[in-house]
């Protein structure tokens, strides 16, 4: 039975993420309560807004020691969405340099969109760079919905799961072991997003 904990640190778009997972999971909570975190089988870190603001609230409101234990030691499946993915990096560069969680080495920098306007908003293709259970059954280069101006620059290519093109090819999905991150919004991506969320819940 999947028990999804959407980590509650005061991020804006939690409701849509909750609606998505409650349509497919047995048990979903939005919480920062250590009791819930101990019981949960899957963790989702949503995020909108600026990197540094998100990191500040994450450090203030989430029990980081416990979270690191369940994610890094117990290796429970973890999915970061949008800024919730970006904070997995070593550091972010939005409004000055700011340390991230450092779970997957890399920096988050502004997209080199060439002449295209930022933020990058809309439906765009996600091209898988390796076989992954997260991206299974989605067809070739599925469309997902994006809203962002910054992108993850990975230190190690082995953590690259998918790329998307907007002016440049940027990293739109990352993975290290049980830790996944997606730059796009599954909760706004209709059937494609539902399938990705189901894939995530199927991870053990």
């Amino acid at each position: 039975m999947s028990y999804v904990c959407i980590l509650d640190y005061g991020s804006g778009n939690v409701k849509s993420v909750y609606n998505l997972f409650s349509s497919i999971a047995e048990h979903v909570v939005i919480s920062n309560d250590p009791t819930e975190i101990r019981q949960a089988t899957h963790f989702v870190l949503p995020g909108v807004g600026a990197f540094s603001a998100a990191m500040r609230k994450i450090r203030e409101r989430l029990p980081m020691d416990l979270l690191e234990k369940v994610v890094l030691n117990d290796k429970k499946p973890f999915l970061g969405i949008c800024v919730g993915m970006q904070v997995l990096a070593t550091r972010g560069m939005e409004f000055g340099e700011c340390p991230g969680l450092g779970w997957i080495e890399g920096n988050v920098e502004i997209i080199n969109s060439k002449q295209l306007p930022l933020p990058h908003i809309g439906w765009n293709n996600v091209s898988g760079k390796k076989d992954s259970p997260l991206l299974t059954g989605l067809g070739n280069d599925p469309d997902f919905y994006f809203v962002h101006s910054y992108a993850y620059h990975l230190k190690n290519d082995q953590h690259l799961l998918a790329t998307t093109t907007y002016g440049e090819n940027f990293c739109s999905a990352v993975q290290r072991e049980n830790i996944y991150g997606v730059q796009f919004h599954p909760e706004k991506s209709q059937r494609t997003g539902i399938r990705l969320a189901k894939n995530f819940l199927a991870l053990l």
Partner: protein
Amino acid sequence: MKKKRLIPILLLRNGWLVQSKQFSRYQNLGNPISSVKRLSEWASDELIYLDISNGDSYDMRRDDLAHPNRHSIFEIIEDVAKVAYMPITVGGHIRNLQDIEKRLSLGADKVALNTMAIDDPQFVETAAKEFGSQCIVISIDVKLQGESQFVMARGGKQLTAYAPEDWAKTVEQLGAGEILLNSIDRDGMKNGYDIELLNRVTDSVRIPVIACGGVGEWRHFAEALDKTGVDAVAAANIFHYSDQSVFLAKKYLSEQGLNVRLPSLFEI
């Protein structure tokens, strides 16, 4: 590659879904929520809800329009967010930051400002700084006055001094993320978008422009995507009368070789 978007607009009047003609005649189409799940399943790229309720108006010929439905705009946003996993823009009656925050907290992703932006342009900047430019859509209603087109406020009732392209530039500089450009003269007329107006505005700004007003056939969507720099094509009336409307429109646009997202057909 980023796709051009196809966006159904749902017009709400006193809690009912309505059809509009030139901002002055309205026809009741029924419950605003039952149509949403279908629109989502047919792969609409986004939805725009515009609440055009007007407290001081009363349509004598259609009593039902004057009786508020049990659905408030807030209930509608909340219910819609549960069934439609796509970006939702909500407009109408937004006067302050709390109005925006409330709509976002219920599941809206963006808000559309119109009269408030004209009354207080600084509010566009304040709202963009608070919630991000990606969240602030400026809805611009345009009407021909004599030889020239002007921006109208208060649901098309009040003339302003702005030319559409000048107003678009102004709100872009203030931090607007998108422009929803509507021609009142074309609204409900089914004779196609005002292509010249779309070009004048898209040539003046870098932010995405959503075309609105006048679609009577699928080819009108294609015409705007072909001949103008719009990022999205929107319509209201045409989507509510035929089964699988969005799907069929997408299929048509794709067959014309246009860069649109197709409905996903895999099993989930």
